[in-house]
Every structure is written in C-alpha cells, then in structure tokens.
C-alpha cells in the first residue's frame, strides 16, 4: 500500500496532548510519524492539509445500522458510508436488528458485512439477553470471540436488576462494557416526549426525567456491587449528570455518552408535532442541555455518541404518537459539536477529539483514537471553518430523518482515512 503523507495540517491528538501544525505519515496501515518537515517517502500520496485539522478518526459507540432486517432504512454498507462522510472511522453497531444480534453467528454477519463494505470499521455489539427479552444472558464469550466489543439490549433497558447484576459480573471475564439504555419502563410507559410544560401544552404523554435517573442510579449501584464496567447510553438529564459525577468521584467504573441532539436541542423542538424531534430519551429542557454541555466539558460525560437511528420517510410522516423514535446523526455530529461546544468555548478542539475519538477508543478498547506511531492509521482531516447547508437528500445514509435539514453548519470533513486508505474524500477535492 502506498504511504500517505498528510502535510501541513493542525494536528489535534489528545493522547499526545498535541495541538500544532505538522505532518502525519501513514504507512502499511499504521501511523509512522507525526511531526514537522517529514520527508515524502517514494511513491507517497500527499494530502495538503494546510488550514485543516488532522485528528484521529472519530469513533461512535452507538449507532443503529438496521441490517439485518430493515435494509430499507440503512444497511451496514450505507451506514459505514455515512460514518466516513461524517469523519467516523469506527462505529459500534447496536444489536436491536431483526433478528437481534444475540449469538456468535449474528455477530460474525455484522462484522463480515462491515469488512466487505471496506469503509469505517464496524464493531458489532452483542445483546445482553437472548432475544433482548431481558431473561437469559446471551453468550458473551462466543460473541466476543466473533468480534463483539460490548453488550447491550439498547432500544430496551435491562429492567431486571438481577440480569444487570449478572451481566456486569459475567462481562468482566471478557473485558467488555455493558451498555445500558436507562429507562424505567413502567414510569415511561406510553410516553412520547419529555414530561414538562411543552408536553402539557401539546397534549402528549410525557416521559419524566426520573424515568432515566432511577435507572442510572440503579446501574451505578450495581456497578459498585459488581465492580463491572457499566456504560450509560444517551444521557439526557441534569439529574443523570449529577449521579454520574458522584459515581466518578467514588471511582466506580461508570462511563457515559450523550448525543448531539441532547447537547443541541430542547423539548420546545416538538412544537408543531415535528416527528424529527421525537426520540428516546426525549429532548429535555434548557437546564438539562446546559448540564450535558458542561458535563462534556468537564469529562463527567466521557464521549459523544450519535445514536444514529435511520427511519424510512413514511415512518416519520405520521401522527406524533405513531412515529418511531430517533434521528440520524453521523453526518452532522462533528459540525454540531463544533457549533454548540467548541465555538462557545466550552470545549477546546483537543477536548472535542478526546470525547469523539480518544475516549471511546480507550474506554471500549477499540483500535485508533490516537496518532501515536504504531496506532492504526485511522484519521480524519476536516475544515473547521467552512460552512455548509444540510441537504438530507445528499446524505450517504439511506435515511433522511434529521431535524437539521436546511440549516447552515460549520465544519466539513475533507478526507477520512481508515487503515491508511482514503475512504472518503469531499466532493471537488
């Protein structure tokens, strides 16, 4: 494979506390060197990154790629294409497909499809329980052997405290996190949006913040009981942030993510019954959004994960009660983070790359997340300043369900490289 020299960009690598102009040399699928004035090896491809940011490729620990079962919404290949267009070099695919990914054969299918696509690295997540039914542990060991990097019943919470306890204990043999969707089901039952003034006005059944927080508190208590690694998915409330902060102060193995929509939007967005504002957990209040932003700044929340949730056009073109939850996020996440977190000065670029690349790699034991020599050559090169208009029809994703259609956002990916190969190049380059 030809070496690639990324020349003259601003290198941002939190694992080396590096933020400065220089070159990055990639060869044989590895980072070979970072520094100034690296000579061009024979036959090397040169990417001129002058004025651009060069960072370890982004990693998203929470995406829904819909294959197998709902290939009309997304496939592993289109999801991986969407990922690299958004600067992601690795994505962790949630197992709530049809059928669910609860055995080694199914895990192998996802992994093979990801490798065949040859774009972003696709890491399968296996189910916590057989059939995601919340009763019997799935075969963690065999799934990890086939390539699973975590277990989760996402889409559903692990409601049984006994099952969650055993999952956290059993997962320790394999060194994988148990990622939980935190929602007290009886309390959230039938809810369509955040419970508050807006749900009262719209006459929609609300989901109180307490439904998430009760479950977060339980998971933290079980993490303490078991010493296991619990990863809390898509945190949305200020109360959850407070619980996680205290758990981290106690030194518990609790990690947590939040999604771009939760640091960008609030429940007001449901006005007019906009089904692209319907997600679970729901969009919350301004105080919650502020707490999420602050927690991403101070590290209480470890990483940004999109919860990329493709849905067919028809499915969202419905009454709010009947529309499915979720939006796609891979192609807008970096831009929203730049606008909402970096531009106001809450996060430096170095911290942003920590939350979107280094931390997910470190916490979930994934390759990449660093530009240290010897690391896999997964790199994103982006222009932080250029603006673009979100045109859902132009997405690489198969789905169009985004609340940001028509918005002008800053930051565009120029090149995405996986394993030292350019797998995405912005149009016109």
């Amino acid at each position, binding site marked *: 494979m030809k070496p690639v020299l990324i020349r003259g960009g601003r290198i941002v690598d939190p694992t080396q506390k590096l933020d400065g102009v220089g070159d990055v040399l990639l060869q044989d699928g590895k980072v070979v060197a970072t520094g100034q004035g690296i000579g061009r090896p024979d036959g090397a491809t040169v990417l001129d990154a002058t004025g651009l940011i060069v960072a370890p490729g982004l990693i998203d620990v929470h995406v829904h790629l819909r294959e197998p079962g709902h290939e009309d919404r997304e496939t592993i290949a289109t999801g991986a294409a969407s990922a690299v267009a958004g600067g992601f070099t690795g994505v962790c695919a949630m197992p709530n497909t049809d059928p669910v990914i609860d055995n080694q054969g199914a895990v192998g299918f996802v992994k093979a499809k990801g490798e065949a696509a040859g774009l972003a690295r696709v890491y399968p997540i296996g189910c916590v329980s057989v059939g995601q039914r919340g009763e019997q542990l799935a075969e963690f060991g065999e799934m990890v052997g086939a390539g699973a990097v975590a277990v989760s019943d996402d889409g559903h919470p692990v409601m049984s405290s006994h099952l969650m306890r055993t999952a956290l204990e059993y997962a320790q043999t394999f060194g994988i996190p148990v990622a939980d969707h935190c929602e007290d089901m009886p309390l959230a039952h039938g809810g369509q949006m955040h*419970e508050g*003034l807006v*749900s*009262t006005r*719209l*006459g*929609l*059944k609300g989901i109180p913040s307490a439904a998430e927080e009760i479950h977060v508190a339980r998971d933290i208590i079980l993490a303490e009981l078991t010493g296991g690694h619990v990863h809390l998915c898509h945190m949305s409330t200020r109360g959850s942030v407070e619980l996680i902060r205290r758990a981290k102060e106690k030194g518990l193995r609790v990690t947590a993510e939040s999604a771009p929509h939760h640091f960008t939007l609030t429940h007001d967005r449901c006005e007019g*019954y906009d089904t692209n504002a319907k997600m679970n957990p729901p969009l919350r209040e301004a105080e919650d959004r502020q707490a999420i932003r602050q927690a991403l700044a101070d590290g209480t929340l470890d990483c940004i994960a999109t919860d990329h949730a493709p849905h067919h056009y028809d499915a969202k073109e419905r009454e*709010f009660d009947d529309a499915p939850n979720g939006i796609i996020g891979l192609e807008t996440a970096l831009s929203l983070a730049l606008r909402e977190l970096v531009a106001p000065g809450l996060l430096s670029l170095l911290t942003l790359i920590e939350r979107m690349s280094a931390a997910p790699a470190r916490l979930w034991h994934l390759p990449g997340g660093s530009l240290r020599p010897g690391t896999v050559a997964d790199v994103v090169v982006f222009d932080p300043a250029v603006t673009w208009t979100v045109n859902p029809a132009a997405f690489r994703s198969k789905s169009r369900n985004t609340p940001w259609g028509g918005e002008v956002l800053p930051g565009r990916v120029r090149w995405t490289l996986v394993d030292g190969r350019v797998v995405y190049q912005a149009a016109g380059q």
Partner: protein
Amino acid sequence: MSTAILGKDLVGLEPLSGDQIRAILDTAEPFKEVSERQIKKVPALRGKTIVNLFYEASTRTRISFEFAEKRLSADTVNVQAAGSSISKGETLVDTARNLEAMRIDMVVIRHGASGAAQFLGARIQSNVINAGDGKHEHPTQGLLDLLTLRDHFTNLAGLKVCIVGDVLHSRVARSNIWGLTKLGAQVAVCGPATLLPRDIAELGVTVFRHVAEAIQWADALNVLRLQLERMTAGFIPSLREYNRVFGVTNERLARAPKDILIMHPGPMNRGVEIDSDVADGPHSVILPQVTNGVAVRMAVLYLLAGGSPDWAAGGGDTA
C-alpha cells in the same frame, strides 16, 4: 371573500387571538337564531363539500357538526373508522389525499392522536377543523363553553372558571384554558394530582387540590368526564372514591358563597364526577351548551369558508 378572521384551519384556540375568538362568538350569535326557525337552513355553504372524518367514536360532536353543516346547506359525508380504509391500515395522510382527490372543501377531523388535525392541515389544501385531537385541543367545545358563559355573564373578563376533573387527558380542558385566558377570565383547575398535567400552573392557571376550595372561589365550574379506564390505569383507586373526594355534589355546592354555573362537556357519568341533582339542577347549563355547539360550529365553518361576520349578522340569508 374575507379569510382574515381565521386562517385556513382551526386546530386549536391556542394559536388564536382574543379578537379572533370574539369574532367567532359574535358570528355565532345570529346563527343561534337559524336553529330556532321553522326552516332551519341558510344557503351560506351551498355547493361546499365537507367530510366528517372520525377516527374515534363520537355521537354528540359528530351530530352537532353535521347539523351545523346541513343548516348551512353544505353537502356532507361521514367517514367512520370502522368499515373504511382507515381500519385497513391506510395512513392518515393517504386517507386525506384520497378524499381531497374527490375535490372536497373541508375536513372535520376527530382523532386519537394529539396533533392529528395540524398534521392533516399542513398536508392538504382543504380547510381542516379539529373536532378533538388526542389530549391536545377540542376548539369548538372550548368555543361553545365560552359562548355559554358569555350568555350568562356577558363579560368574561375577571370571571372565575374552574375546570374540575381529569385535566391530564382532557382536550376540552386545554381549549378552555386557552380560550378563557385569552378573553381575560381567571382559570383554575381542580382534581387529583395524578390527573393534573405537569407544569400546568405555568399556563397561568390556579391549581386547587380540594373541590371545596374551588367551590369557594369559582363563578362557574366546568366538570370533566372521568373516563372509566383511568381506574385500571392506576390514576385513581375507584370511581366511588373519586365521587366522594372530587365529585361535584349539591352538598358541596350548598356551601358556596354564591350560585355557581355548572357546565359539563358530556357525556356525563352521573354519580361519578357530577351528581344527577347538580346536572339537572337550576344552575346547570349543560343542555344550552349543546344548543350553542351547533351555532358555534356554524360560525367556524362559515368563517373558514371565507364568510364575513357582517353578512352572518343578517342571518346569512342574502346569498
């Protein structure tokens, strides 16, 4: 043609101004008289086609709309959920587009999902009138309640109206809150905390936990129907206890400092949220509410069709 009074659709009272609401009520006044005539018909909507699209069972509201439409000389079709393509799984938007392809002018929609009327209005060119959407709004019920109150109190500014019962699940409550506050009335709600929505006070209403307090305060009570399924869903322990604690009874009303006007949107659960001697008593305006419903719906249909209030004031006869 004057479409200035209302927009294309009537989805709720929240988007309307006090002046718009007053204009509808003023337009309803002359239409009251039409229903008292020997020949209860004016030609105002002659040639207009109206579809009454009812996804939920309704007797009173559907019949009231149908009378209003017929007394304005419109051609009407009733589409019920049962026996239509609705029950075959066709989406709301497809049903509406198919109806519109038959060249209709208006759709009156009753639907179990909040926002359904607005959803429909945004997707078809016909006028859409919300006849109740989920727990959101029931604007013509709100308007007929306002008209009934205005008949008795003339001026609603400063009037104290308490909505009693299951506010959480009530579209009638929301339309009343918006309509009353926009006309300057003071509004309270009263009911078990399990049946009051979150942050309701932020809509500018007072919250009472005890009916006795509401009765001390109010000039009028609007008593909501308690759906029997609220008991199995765990919101209240029993209908019997509900009547004991939150029922509007003559015994409680006897302790009021003044006569209180009693309203109910129907259908009533006698002996649950309201006792029969209250419902049938001298201060009940429950049947005048029903009468006013036809007049208010005539006014809304007429205004959405582009009619002017001045013309309606002549009884709408001079087409």
